[in-house]
């Protein structure tokens, strides 16, 4: 097993949809090296994809001149992923998607990204940006969870 403790890997993505797959692949490689099981790696990939898509679409507003930063930090217990954009951050967390309301046209069929992020990782935190600094979302998956 490759020593990953204290390791940080940084990826910069162009603000174009589809490039979230680069972050997914990188995160999967780091998580695999840390010993996460495949199902947790799949959870992380989906959560990270949604975080990157939000950063590309809403944070950077699809501006090709702006980058989305992704920093993966490995410790003994967990993998933390920060996804950074230049936007001001979310103003409120959307409510849990309601499939019945969606099916009846009372709720947008989209708008599930944040719910998926919160549901698939052990910790998710949205940090609003201050003037001149962008905002970020922080995701954490813990190794301890596999032995629970």
């Amino acid at each position, binding site marked *: 097993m490759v020593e990953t403790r204290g390791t940080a890997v940084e990826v910069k993505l162009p603000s*174009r*949809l*589809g*490039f*979230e*797959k*680069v972050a997914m692949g990188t995160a999967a490689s780091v998580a695999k090296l840390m010993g996460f099981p495949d*199902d947790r790696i*799949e*959870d992380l990939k*989906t959560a990270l*994809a*949604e975080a990157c*898509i939000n950063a590309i679409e809403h944070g950077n507003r699809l501006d090709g001149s702006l980058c989305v930063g992704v920093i993966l930090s490995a410790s003994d217990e967990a993998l933390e992923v920060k996804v950074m954009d230049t936007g001001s951050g979310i103003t409120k967390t959307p409510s849990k*998607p*309601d*499939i*019945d309301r*969606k*099916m009846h*046209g009372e709720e*947008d*069929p*989209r*708008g*599930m*990204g944040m*719910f*998926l992020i919160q*549901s*698939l990782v052990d910790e998710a935190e949205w940090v609003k940006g201050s003037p001149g600094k962008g905002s970020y979302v922080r995701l954490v998956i813990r190794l301890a969870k596999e032995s629970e």
Partner: protein
Amino acid sequence: MQTETKAKVDEVLAANGRPVTVLRFTGDISSTSRDTVLGTYEGVVKSRPVLIDFSKVEYINSSGIALVIQMLMEASKADQTIAAFGLTPHFQKVFTMVGITKYAALHRDEATAIASL
């Protein structure tokens, strides 16, 4: 970076001899898949059950899941039975989390899906 969504429409027979439409998607299902996903569904015969084959889909994100929900909405309006097969265990979990299983059964493979009709 995204793999183009492709769709193929097949017809198979259920055990009772009734024709069943199978929508086979390949590639990614995301926001750019709208025309392929909804356009292909629009063309299917609404009086027959429809199975959606995800076994060759490489990537689905929340925008892609929203397109699946829009297909289910159209199926519901037409009182059409719709089910899916070939999702990975991870995406079976995700589809269950967002409630899709309330409106479409998820099956392991095509044979199981056809047998359920």
